[in-house]
């Protein structure tokens, strides 16, 4: 693999997406579904906690994006090593979600997308935009 020497220092200036908890304005049913999925991630996964905010943004989007595609039966791009790495975490997540959350099988594709979009927003809030971690914007690894 080719070696890249140039450091992208601008990466630390990633934009904020949320200024409040995205679950604050959803109904109880959605809140309960998202909370169940969120609890599984926070207890069992590590990918959402990379050390820098810009990495967390990419991790959350990559893995939860692919998890959504798997849950609704869409084809998933695994053409690059990074995509494949997101995909393996997504496969495990989708399997565990299906195993633990029977209600998922009763939802249509659009409903699943809607729940997973809220979950993505919530994980972004917990790990990036609402996070109290002061090291997320350090420029270097």
């Amino acid at each position, binding site marked *: 693999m080719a070696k890249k020497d140039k450091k992208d220092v601008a990466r630390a200036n990633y934009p904020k997406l949320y200024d409040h908890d995205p679950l604050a304005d959803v109904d109880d049913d959605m809140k309960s579904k998202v909370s169940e999925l969120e609890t599984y991630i926070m207890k069992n996964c590590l990918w959402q906690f990379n*050390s820098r905010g810009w990495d967390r943004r990419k991790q959350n989007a990559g893995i939860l994006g692919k998890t959504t595609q798997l849950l609704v039966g869409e084809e998933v791009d695994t053409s690059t090593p990074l995509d494949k790495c997101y995909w393996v975490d997504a496969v495990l997540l989708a399997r565990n979600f299906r195993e633990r959350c029977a209600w998922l099988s009763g939802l249509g594709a659009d409903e699943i997308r809607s729940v997973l979009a809220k979950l993505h927003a919530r994980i972004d809030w917990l790990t990036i935009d609402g996070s109290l971690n002061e090291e997320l914007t350090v420029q270097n690894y």
Partner: protein
Amino acid sequence: MPYHEFEVSKCIPERKMHAVVKGPGEDLTDALPKGYLNTIPGTISERGCAYCGAKHVIGTPMKDVIHLSHGPVGCTYDTWQTKRYISDNNNFQLKYTFASDVKEKHIVFGAEKLLKQNILEAFDAFPDIKRMTIYQTCATALIGDDIGAIAEEVMTERPEVDIFVCNSPGFGGPSQSGGHHKINIAWLNQKVGTVEPEITSDYVINYVGEYNIQGDQEVMLDYFKRMGIQVLSTFTGNGTYDSLRGMHRAHLNVLECARSAEYICDELRARYGIPRLDIDGFGHKALGDSLRKIGLFFGIEDRAEAIIAEETARWKPELDWYKERLQGKKVCLWPGGSKLWHWAHAIQEEMGVKVVSVYTKFGHQGDMEKGVSRCGEGALAIDDPNELENQEALLTLKPDVIFTGKRPGEVAKKMRVPYLNAHAYHNGPYKGFEGWVRFARDIYNAVYSPMHQLSAIDISKDDYAIDKGFVTRRMLSDATLSEEAKASPITGYTGPFDPISGLRGKTYPVFERRAATEAAE
């Protein structure tokens, strides 16, 4: 914000921001202790220094290397043999430690000449070893010794040797974590890409952040080899110097301890495009999922599933035997860094214990995010605690057992709280399906030790019971169990005393390489 103020630290108000209690319904945006900050003067921190983090934690587990500290002999001595990162070359790196033995006169006149003499003497004393790491210390950093120049000089004079210079003096960071960072980046900048490794498999990984504590790495390598995966290097437990120079050729970095080694993974991803996959080698579910993920990445998940099925069938019943007897036992999970999140959820789910507190000596807020997420409501999370705070927490929380290092562990024992060594283990390895049962066995033995019960008797008093005989662990642990549970034919861990030496001579299946198969077709 549910910050927790220790009574003993009221005179140090800054400490209040370093401890939180996870309250009902709260999440990470409500509660997170400060972390990785300079130690507050007067708190008597238990942290190690940046030199210790670089040398003792990360550098020294490399097995075929002369590890030489350029500084006073005390720096080397105090970071020698206290952590059991064994190796399959007769533990060379544990048996020998080297120091340039800097004294006052060298501080005045310089110690570069002394260093060169020491390097040559060390290579001459061990002619089979051609690799060396040199660690900067506070004293030699302050006098400005140019270790890099001396190393270059020696490498020019002796082209067969290679030397790595780690410039991480003790003052180079708030804690040992500063040293982890420095040695990660220094290794990447100086050494990665300087050796082209031989690739023998279609599936090639670096196993990163693994230090072979009592054989952990060898247990995990056994699984990888059974899957036909080539482990190009291990950073750094039981790893060789030259294999780590070839890290740039791996297809995947499998990261275990993110606290100590995520930096090199992140930079390998940024510079060479190698993805980082975080795994957990502790706990049956987490380990199974980790093997599945690696298998999926390479398209060989069936091989992972075969291992998981075999290992689970062998070890899960024994793990469950302990779980039944450890239900609800309160644990203070007080390791150095990563184990607070590696273990917090897995021990609760798979061993039935309850984590009432987590702490980290040198962790960052990221470690606390993982740890606080993985423990339950009411858990006390503490950053960089001191001994008085530890004692107050033990008196308040009344844990049944504590997992920590040997310094706070000995204090806990004197307070009659059984202690297990979270850094070097008691009877490890703890990784792997079998290792996890060994950990459960050690917890069980700690909690139900008859000696521990006896130690509560104050024999200086006349009123202790003399009509009770010696009790066994089983009498204590099974007292409240059902008759059915008591009648179980399982009696706990049945593995060998040493599960590692057998792995060293083991042969593995040879999988045909994809390239060869495609050529044949």
